[in-house]
């Protein structure tokens, strides 16, 4: 029943790890060679790989896990997909119906514990419901604002006999996402755009999810509007484009945050005004009217006040909006941003001989011409990748944004590579995050998945160390990793090519050798642990408290004694 239903949904790839309660499902798998099963080493890997697969391909990722610990191990991956709007369907085994509620072996309240981190979930109590539930789950996962849906199926329901009848349509009276923007609102938005002197576009993940790349470009070029991209919006607009201004916010480039500060109109496309973007809300975009276009009505007005809200699919709304937007040029405004850019050159590489992450990422960007698929973990390396990699192709940045889940970089890269087998995938990893999920290297070897790993190995939880340095008087407690393995030897133990880089002069060669190798590669970049990410707007603060270089920190802290401790 389950496999037949998955085939109807066009699924051909599943990530999973079996156990007692889901075994009846696994026993039917040999009959379905069309369903490729990737055996992960930890269920978190299955969920995050399914997430990476969805983000890279736009096709719903599928993960299988057994009851109890199998299901709870999925949760970080599910939560991550939920925060970042990734379509995923998880199917978990449950103890037999008669044992539910009896604290049976490996019993867990899976629908209960996943309730707050899924878009929807199901406990299926009879086999005849499976086709309908699978149909609904895929529909809910991929439409509207995408998200994870979990289906929990008791062991004896898998083997119960029932007539297989796959429905053609779903019947969900409580679920009807709005796709087309309201014409009156679109008209108002067009008027504001046509009147604006200093407009900016804030492009978020919604542009990528709705594949509105061309529509965004049309709008930006037609009305000559600079494009700022959020972390998850990176690669929605080519950073080689003259109108690209980069990422704003806590670790964004200063000129992007300053451009928002000075703008008179902010057009937000599929972004949700996360605190990492806005800083202190009361000081965010003080001069701007805000047009907020999003498919999720609940994010509109959630954090910032909006003048023109438009609920709808970004691509469809832009198609309608672009027709009403008049051609314009904003030479003066662009010159002003150019001036900000030259006065606040946020992406200067540190001028020393040390091997820094910034240098490596710049080299990687140059060598791959900004065309590789970049998957990152969370922390300093993530911010530097966001800053220094010049994303020039659509949908090439895959990162755990909202949840900020370390360890994402290994399984998500695996999923992304399986989704786009003919492209080069570079996983930018921290030594901390890598060690959370590196067991998936075995999965990568087993399935010949040629991901290139760049471990930014500073023997520290670098971003936590940076906060300890900046806000906690250099109390470096529990951030130093003194027992890191030899990552090159580790790679070899898995049968993977391993390279170590300790000096700037070796960087280009290592990247080229990894690119030329047709299998997976682990590059251990031994980098300077004391380097910190700048610019930085301290948490909860505004652009006025911007710290652009280490020597400005003391002054900012002194001027704002109430800043501590940050959150």
């Amino acid at each position, binding site marked *: 029943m389950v496999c037949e239903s998955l085939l109807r949904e066009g699924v051909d790839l599943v990530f999973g790890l079996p156990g007692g309660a889901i075994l009846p499902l696994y026993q039917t798998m040999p009959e379905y060679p069309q369903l490729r099963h990737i055996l992960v080493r930890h269920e978190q890997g299955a969920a995050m790989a399914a997430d990476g697969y969805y983000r890279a391909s736009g096709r719903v990722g599928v993960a299988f896990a057994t009851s109890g610990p199998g299901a709870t191990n999925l949760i970080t991956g599910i939560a991550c997909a939920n925060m970042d709007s990734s379509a995923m369907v998880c199917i978990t085994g449950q103890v037999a119906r008669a044992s539910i509620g009896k604290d049976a072996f490996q019993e867990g309240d899976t629908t209960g514990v996943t309730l707050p981190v899924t878009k*929807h979930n199901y406990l299926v109590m009879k086999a005849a419901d499976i086709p309908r539930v699978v149909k609904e789950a895929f529909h809910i996962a991929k439409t509207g604002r995408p998200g994870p849906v979990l289906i929990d199926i008791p062991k004896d329901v898998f083997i119960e006999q029932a007539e297989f009848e796959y429905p053609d349509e779903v019947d*969900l*009276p*409580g679920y009807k996402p709005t796709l087309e923007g309201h014409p009156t609102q679109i008209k108002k938005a067009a008027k504001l755009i046509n009147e604006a002197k200093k407009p900016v576009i804030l492009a978020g993940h919604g542009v990528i999810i709705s594949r509105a790349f061309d529509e965004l470009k049309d709008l930006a070029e037609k009305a000559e509007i600079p494009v700022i991209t959020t972390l998850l919006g990176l690669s929605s607009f080519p950073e080689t484009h003259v109108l690209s201004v980069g990422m704003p916010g806590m670790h964004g480039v200063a000129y992007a945050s300053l451009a928002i500060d000075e703008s008179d109109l902010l057009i937000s496309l599929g972004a949700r005004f996360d605190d990492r973007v806005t800083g202190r809300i009361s000081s965010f975009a003080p001069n701007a009217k805000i047009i907020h276009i999003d498919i*999720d009505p*609940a994010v509109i*007005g959630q954090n910032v006040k909006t003048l023109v809200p438009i609920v709808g699919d970004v691509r469809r709304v832009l198609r309608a909006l672009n027709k009403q937007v008049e051609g314009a040029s904003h030479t003066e405004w662009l010159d002003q941003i150019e001036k900000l850019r030259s006065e606040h050159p946020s992406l200067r590489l540190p001028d020393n001989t040390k091997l820094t992450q910034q240098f490596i990422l710049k080299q990687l960007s140059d060598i791959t011409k900004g065309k590789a698929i970049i998957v990152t973990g969370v922390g300093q390396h993530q911010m530097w990748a966001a800053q220094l990699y010049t994303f020039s192709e659509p949908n090439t940045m895959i990162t755990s944004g909202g949840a900020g889940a370390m360890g994402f970089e290994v399984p998500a890269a695996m999923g992304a590579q399986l989704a786009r087998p003919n492209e080069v995938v570079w996983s930018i990893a921290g030594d901390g995050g890598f060690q959370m999920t590196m067991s998936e290297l075995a999965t990568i070897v087993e399935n010949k998945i040629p991901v290139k790993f760049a471990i930014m190995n500073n023997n520290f939880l670098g971003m936590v160390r940076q906060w300890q340095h900046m806000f906690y008087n250099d109390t470096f407690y529990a951030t130093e990793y003194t027992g890191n393995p030899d990552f090159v030897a580790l790679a070899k133990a898995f049968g993977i090519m391993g390279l170590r880089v300790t000096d700037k002069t070796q960087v280009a060669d290592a990247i080229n050798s990894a690119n030329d190798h047709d299998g997976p590669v682990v590059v251990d970049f031994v980098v300077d642990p004391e380097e910190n990410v700048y610019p930085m707007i301290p948490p909860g603060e505004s652009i006025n408290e911007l710290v652009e270089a280490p020597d400005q920190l003391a002054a900012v802290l002194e001027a704002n004694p109430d800043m501590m401790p940050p959150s």
Partner: protein
Amino acid sequence: MATNGKATHTLVALVQDKPGVLNRVSSMFRRRGYNIASLAVGHSEIPNLSRMTFVVEGDDATVEQATKQLYKLIDVVRVNKLSDTDSVSREMALIKVKSTVQTRSEIIQMVEIFKANIVDVSPDSMIIEVTGDQEKIDSFHNLLEPFGVKEVMRTGRVAMDRGPSSSHGLDKSSKL
């Protein structure tokens, strides 16, 4: 309307009658930090749909967010915010009060004034059923207090828009 000095709002949601739906709704309210002052659930006139009445504490923005978040739940079909002036709302309470030969007639008088009902009588106590808006029940309760209130059981608020239209815009025979 205000209780404890905080502004309250009445939301009525039409939800699918499925296992766990109350949990989904209450879990969302808890997770997002919204305060429910009262909650009442019961079948609606449409098969397979229940109606929930929430009294939510908070400002207008909070209530708007709560409404949007309710809509995001797949099992929630319709949400309406009722205005205090254009809607009727009722609560019910059962109040067990001490009564003696000396006080009984005085209590019965009070019951008549408030159009309440005596539903159980024992030698030294009685149970009174009272229906009305929150203020009426509060004041009835306060008046009984001197006699010795032993137990109070109150329902949540149920509410409905005035006038001919239905809050959901659905036909009774809608296929759901």
